[in-house]
C-alpha cells in the first residue's frame, strides 16, 4: 500500500496544469474500463497522457505488485483517479504566456514548497507588468510589478513631483 501511495504521488507530481490534470484523469478512466486487458494500458497511456507523464505512468504499471492482480489494479486506479480529482488548484494571473520551461520551473517550486497535489491554472493579464496575482484555496494576494512600481511611486511621490515639476 505504501508503494501504491508513492506511485500515486509520483504521478501527481508530474501533473503540472489543469489541462494535464483533465487529460490524465480521462486516461485513468479509460484504464479502469480496460482493467481486464492490461496489455492495452501502454497504448492508452501513450495516446492519452502528456509525454512527460506517460513514461512515469508506464513504469508504475510495470510494478510486480500490480501485474496480474486485477482487483488490486482496480483499487489502485480508483485511488489514483480520486487523488488526481482532489488536487488543489493554484491560479496565477501573469503578464506573459509561460513556456514549457517556465511551467516546469514554477511547478518544481510548487511541488517543493507547497505540495505535489497542486496543479497550476494560468491566466493572462499584460497590465500587471510582471510577477503574479496569486489565488489559492480561497485566498488572494498580489505580487506584481505594477503594484511594486505603485508602492515606489507612493513612497517617493514628493521627490518625484519635485523632480518633474
Amino acid at each position, binding site marked *: 500500500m505504501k508503494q501504491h501511495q508513492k506511485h500515486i504521488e509520483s504521478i501527481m507530481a508530474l501533473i503540472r496544469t489543469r489541462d494535464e490534470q483533465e487529460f490524465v484523469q480521462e486516461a485513468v478512466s479509460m484504464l479502469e474500463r480496460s482493467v481486464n486487458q492490461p496489455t492495452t494500458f501502454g497504448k492508452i497511456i501513450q495516446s492519452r497522457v502528456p509525454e512527460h507523464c506517460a513514461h512515469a505512468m508506464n513504469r508504475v504499471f510495470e510494478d510486480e505488485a500490480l501485474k496480474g492482480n486485477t482487483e488490486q489494479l482496480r483499487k489502485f486506479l480508483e485511488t489514483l483517479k480520486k487523488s488526481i480529482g482532489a488536487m488543489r488548484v493554484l491560479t496565477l494571473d*501573469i503578464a*506573459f504566456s509561460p513556456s514549457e520551461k*517556465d511551467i516546469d*520551473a514554477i511547478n518544481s517550486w510548487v511541488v517543493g514548497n507547497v505540495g505535489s497535489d497542486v496543479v497550476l491554472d494560468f491566466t493572462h493579464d499584460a497590465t500587471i507588468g*510582471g*510577477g503574479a496575482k496569486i489565488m489559492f484555496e480561497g485566498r488572494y*494576494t498580489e*505580487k506584481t510589478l*505594477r503594484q511594486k512600481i*505603485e508602492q515606489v511611486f507612493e513612497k517617493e511621490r514628493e521627490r518625484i513631483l519635485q523632480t518633474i515639476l
Partner: protein
Amino acid sequence: MSIDPQYFIITFPQLLGAAVVAVVFLVLAVLAGAAFIKHLFLTQEESEKIKQEARRESATMLEEARTESSRIVENANAEAANILRETHVLVSRATKELEEEFHVFSQKESDRLREAATHFADAYQLMTKQAKDVYAEATKRAVEAIGRETAGGLSHFSSAVENETKRYQRSVDERLEEWHKDAQKEIAAYKVNALEKVDESIYRVLLMVSQQAIGRALDFKDHQGFMVRALEEAKHEGFFGKL
C-alpha cells in the same frame, strides 16, 4: 146562348171585294217596297256627296281659321311691339324726369348740409376755445398751488435723497469689497486644486509609462524570475500555510 151559323157564310161579292182589296194592297206594297229600295240607294249616294261636301267645307273652314289666326297673331305681335316701344319711351322719360328731380333734391340737400357743417364748425371752434381757456386757467391755478405747497418740502426731500444715496453707496462699496475678497479666495482655491490635478496627472502618466516600459523591458527569464520571487514572497508571508 148560341150564335147563328149563317153569320159565318161568305158571299162571292164579298170574296171578290176582298180579293180586289188584297190586290190593291199587294200593289201598294210592291210600290212602297220599290220606292223604299230606291230611296235607300239614293240616300247612300247623297250621303257620300254630303260627306265630300262637308270635307270640303271643313277644309275651307280650317284654312280660313288658320289664315284668320295668323292674321290675329301678327296683329297681336305688332300691337305688343307697339306697346313695348311706347313703354320704353315712357320709362325713358320717367327716368330722366326722376334723375332731374333727384339732382335738384341732392343739390338742395348738399347746400343744406354744407350750411349746417359750417354752423357746427363755428360752434365747435367757439366751444373749444372756451374749454381751452378754462383748462389753461385751471392748470395755471393748480401749478401755482403745487408750487406753493412743494416749495416748503423740497429742501427736506433733497437732503433725504442725498443721505439715502450716500448710505446706498456705502452698502454697494461694502458688498463689492466682500465679492472681491470671496473671488480672490475662490481663485486661490481653484489654482491650488488645478495645480494638484496637474501634478496628479503628470504623476499618473509617469507611473503608467514606467509600468509599461518596465513590463515591456522584461524578457522571459526575467518574467520567470519575477514569478518565482512572487511565489517566494507569498510563501514568506504565510500565504500557502494552512488556514
